[in-house]
């Protein structure tokens, strides 16, 4: 009650300030008047009485101030005054303000960008979904603690028997590419298979048409249906308002459009936005050649449930575990001790969450350091300005402003700068975000990657908190320093030494040098690692080579027709002008597909019940090794004769030989695929060990099988051209269409472009850290330059005296440069130590570089010394030119 009344009284005096102050005025002056009258009654003159009262009772003005400042609302009011004053001061110095805001905005913007990515991948609930907080994702949990997706029959079990969800939906976890035939061209589009309750359970209202009907889960109907994404409808159907009811041809089958999803629905997986959705019943058309709906061994379903009202996540977890155990009993062979896990459906799937968190944390640390450098820069600016403003401070102090009030004033100015910088910085994410996304490999398969950075409330809150924290931290020390004024000497215009200020300034310079050196060193490590990764020999030669991924299977071609297509294609490509050789592979190494086959290796069988050894492999056509530029160490390459009628053959790499047949001649040895049918392959050749899954992998065994031995519709054509291959790409494409016009071309690119996939992580870290490192260098250099320049300008007087006393210009130059150099040396030493720590943190991002790489550390230190010396030399030269007479007269 008392608090409420006090607040009411406070508000009253705030809003009726005039009235309240007039009353107080009247009361106080009455008080003093009455006291004066009493003294006069005792016989004093009016003037004497007045003076006596003032001594005894205090003056009117001071009393007013005392009473007024005892009110809590006076703090608000003075803060408001300070704020208005701060705005005026900042507007009066647009140069200073804009430099400070821009510097900070760079640092804050970097933080906002990285946080916006983390927000998208980890924290932001999927867009366009009603009550996203009720959604949970459900996973198989293996006995070793790993999570895996569901098979479709497993999903149905959980969907039909759970008691905790108002619905459980399913969608295909891997992006599925389908051919899309339009008049005149065959394209590729990214699709997602979903359960029929997908849209209704998510609470999504299509902008046109409808979602799926429950019946579409069980029967495909005469013509299968499709719901388009807004993006697809907008970009590829020209926002056709009459699209519902139209027919599209995917994988050679007709689909009728029944609806268009709203713009904000981009799927449930951050980063992967399907272009259209079809019901599960269309699986055999969308993913031909497989029956995933009855297959219990294919784990490809992401399941997402909506919790019933009042059901907690742990209750759901309990129910899911029960259902998982029921399944274990039904399928004891396949599911031994499996469990189910329930996760929040926000962000990337749990298996990637830890990775994303780790990378995010490292990047946040890096941008945090960049911001720290920006802060020290602005602190330095504020410090210099504080010194220039010391007269103003002295005047205010003389007029009765307390030190606390001065500090508050200066802090408010700093925070104001920071908030302005936060506002500018947050706009950075809209152009830095797309810039980062440009680093993705330029291959068609990644067109499904779609990340929209959004300034949602989390990003805004984060950015403003960072800005506020920055404002207080860079504002505090200069405010403390600048509010320390010696009123008398300052007002008397005595020459001022800024000694304490210069100690603080030196500290800031050393901090900046150290931080930026550490950042630059990690950037250097990442660049070196990228160079290393690029120079890693992948085992084949990417230059002057093209690749085209084909899949006649999705057009429903039979094996005979598919084989004939590939045979004719190879014949025609081989004789094209500009082509030196061409071949096929089921998949290329270092891509997204890595498969291993369990095999029994001759002579490598410790026990009869020894399980088969999994060895990674690919299947390649005749002439593959020539076309890819892979040398053969011994034996021969596959030929046309190595097909399904010929005895099985294989080619292995050196590491395979070293590990399984050390010191023996591998040619003629056997690898058995199936002990029962005695299906085995004879080794006919050996290649050097290349890279197969990752560029930084240690040598691993690898084997090649003849492509023609068995048939599968998917294959990648590799073409070695004699010259530059940009023009060859379209020539090869039209040659393919000449053979079979309808065959969907899944992906075309040069092998150099393809190599950007394995190089992606190295390139990403080199680009990001490189950019941040350069930003840090630029900020720290300007910081150092302005600090030295300022100290020179402060010491013009001293320099003038020294020169008048006979100091040579060279001495002055040396003095300035050596003072700056001393700070830089200290900073470099601390920074080198810091870069060892930072290097350890980013070690997992590096290819073949030690985190304490001496070349990088030495060159970064040298670069810094050079830049720093330049930053010192320019102001020092100015100091050298100081005219002693001018400097002395100036005071």
């Amino acid at each position, binding site marked *: *009650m*008392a608090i409420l*009344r*006090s607040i009411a*009284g*406070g508000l009253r005096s705030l809003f009726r300030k005039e009235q309240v102050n007039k*009353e*107080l005025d*009247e*009361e*106080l002056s*009455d*008080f*003093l008047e*009455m*006291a004066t009258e*009493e003294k006069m009654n005792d016989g004093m003159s009016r003037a004497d009485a007045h003076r006596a009262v003032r001594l*005894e*009772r*205090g003056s*009117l003005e*001071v*009393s007013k101030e*005392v*009473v007024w400042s*005892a*009110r809590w609302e006076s703090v608000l009011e003075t803060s408001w005054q300070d704020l208005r004053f701060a705005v005026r001061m900042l507007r009066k110095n647009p140069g200073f303000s804009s430099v400070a805001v821009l510097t900070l905005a760079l640092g804050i913007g970097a933080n906002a960008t990285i946080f916006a990515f983390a927000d998208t991948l980890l924290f932001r609930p999927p867009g366009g979904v009603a009550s996203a907080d009720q959604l949970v994702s459900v996973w198989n949990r293996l006995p070793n603690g790993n999570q895996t997706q569901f098979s479709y029959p497993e999903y149905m079990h959980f969907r039909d028997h759970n008691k905790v969800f108002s619905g459980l939906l399913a969608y295909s976890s891997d992006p599925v590419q389908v051919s899309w035939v339009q008049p005149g061209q065959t394209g590729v589009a990214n699709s997602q298979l979903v359960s029929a309750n997908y849209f209704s359970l998510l609470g999504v209202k299509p902008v046109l048409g409808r979602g799926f009907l429950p019946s579409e889960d069980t029967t495909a109907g005469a013509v299968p249906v499709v719901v388009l994404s807004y993006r697809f409808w907008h970009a590829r159907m020209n926002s056709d308002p009459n699209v519902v009811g139209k027919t599209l041809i995917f994988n050679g089958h007709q689909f009728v459009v029944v609806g268009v999803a709203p713009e904000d629905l981009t799927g449930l997986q951050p980063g992967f936005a399907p272009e259209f959705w079809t019901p599960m019943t269309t699986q055999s058309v969308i993913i031909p050649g497989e029956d995933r709906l009855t297959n219990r061994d294919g784990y490809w379903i992401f399941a997402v449930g909506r919790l019933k009202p009042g059901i907690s996540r742990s209750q759901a977890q309990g129910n899911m575990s029960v259902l998982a155990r029921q399944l274990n009993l039904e399928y004891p062979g396949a599911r031994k001790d499996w469990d189910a896990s329930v996760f929040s459906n926000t962000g990337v799937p749990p298996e990637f969450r830890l990775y994303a968190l780790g990378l995010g944390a490292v990047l946040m640390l890096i941008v945090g350091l960049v911001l720290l450098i920006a802060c020290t820069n602005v602190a330095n600016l504020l410090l210099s300005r504080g010194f220039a403003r010391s007269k103003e401070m002295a005047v205010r102090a003389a007029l009765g402003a307390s030190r606390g009030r001065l500090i508050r004033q200066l802090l408010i100015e700093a925070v104001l700068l920071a908030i302005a910088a936060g506002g500018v910085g947050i706009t950075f994410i809209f152009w830095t975000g797309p810039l980062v996304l440009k680093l993705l490999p330029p291959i068609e398969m990644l067109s499904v990657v779609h990340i929209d950075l959004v300034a949602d409330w989390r990003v805004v809150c984060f950015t403003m908190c960072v800005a506020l924290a920055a404002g207080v931290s860079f504002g505090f020390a200069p405010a403390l320093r600048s509010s320390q004024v010696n009123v008398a000497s300052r007002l008397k215009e005595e020459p001022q030494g800024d000694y304490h200020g210069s100690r603080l300034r030196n500290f800031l310079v050393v901090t900046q040098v150290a931080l930026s050196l550490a950042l630059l060193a990690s950037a250097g490590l990442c660049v070196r690692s990228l160079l290393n990764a690029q120079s890693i020999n992948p085992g084949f030669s990417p230059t002057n080579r093209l690749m085209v991924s084909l899949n006649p299977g999705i057009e429903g071609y039979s094996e005979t027709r598919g084989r004939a297509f590939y045979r004719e294609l190879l014949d025609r490509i081989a004789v094209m002008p500009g082509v030196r050789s061409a071949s096929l592979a089921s998949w290329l190494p270092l891509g997204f597909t890595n498969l291993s086959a369990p095999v029994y290796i001759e002579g490598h069988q410790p026990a009869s019940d020894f399980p088969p050894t999994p060895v990674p492999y690919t299947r390649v056509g005749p002439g593959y090794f020539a076309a890819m530029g892979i040398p053969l160490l011994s034996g021969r390459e596959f030929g046309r004769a190595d097909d399904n009628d010929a005895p099985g053959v294989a080619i292995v790499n050196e590491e395979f030989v070293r590990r399984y047949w050390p010191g023996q001649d591998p040619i003629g040895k056997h690898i058995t695929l199936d002990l029962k049918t005695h299906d085995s392959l004879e080794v006919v050749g050996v290649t050097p060990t290349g890279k197969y899954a990752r560029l930084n992998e240690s040598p691993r065994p690898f084997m090649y099988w003849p492509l023609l031995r068995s048939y599968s519709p998917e294959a990648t054509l590799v073409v070695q051209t004699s010259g530059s291959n940009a023009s060859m790409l379209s020539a090869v494409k039209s040659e393919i269409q000449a053979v079979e016009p309808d065959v969907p071309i899944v992906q075309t690119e040069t092998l150099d472009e393809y190599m950007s996939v394995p190089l992606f992580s190295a390139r990403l870290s080199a680009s990001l850290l490189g950019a941040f490192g350069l930003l840090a260098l630029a900020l720290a250099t300007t910081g150092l330059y302005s600090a030295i320049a300022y100290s020179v300008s402060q010491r013009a007087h001293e320099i003038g005296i020294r020169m008048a006393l006979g100091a040579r210009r060279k001495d002055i130059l040396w003095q300035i440069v050596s003072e700056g150099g001393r700070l830089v040396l200290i900073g470099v030493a601390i920074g080198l130590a810091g870069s060892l720590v930072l290097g350890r943190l980013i070690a997992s991002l590096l290819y073949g570089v030690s985190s304490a790489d001496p070349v990088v550390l030495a060159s970064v230190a040298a670069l810094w010394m050079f830049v720093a010396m330049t930053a010192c030399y320019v102001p020092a030269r100015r100091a050298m030119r100081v005219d002693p007479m001018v400097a002395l007269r100036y005071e």
Partner: protein
Amino acid sequence: MADKPSQDLVQGTLDMLILKMLALEPMHGYGIAVRLEQMSQGVFRLNAGSLFVAVQRLQRDGLIRGEWKATENSRRAKYYALTAKGQKRLNSETREWSRQVAAIARILEAS
């Protein structure tokens, strides 16, 4: 102004003393100061600032209320009077004060 070390004590007691003054009869600011000075035989001499800070605080706490009235020499002045809540507070504070004084006296007189 009061000496710094005793300010807290004075502040607490000042509120109580003002309440006591107003319990006798409603009066204006100067009246409070004069009466307090008389009754303390000159020991407590209030300056305008500290008096009105205390009056403002008591008013906001709802212990006293003010009203503009004409004075005996036909001027306008704000007269303060005790509220019921102020009376209660005065009683409890007087009791507490006597208790403390008695306790302090016992301590100081113990030999």
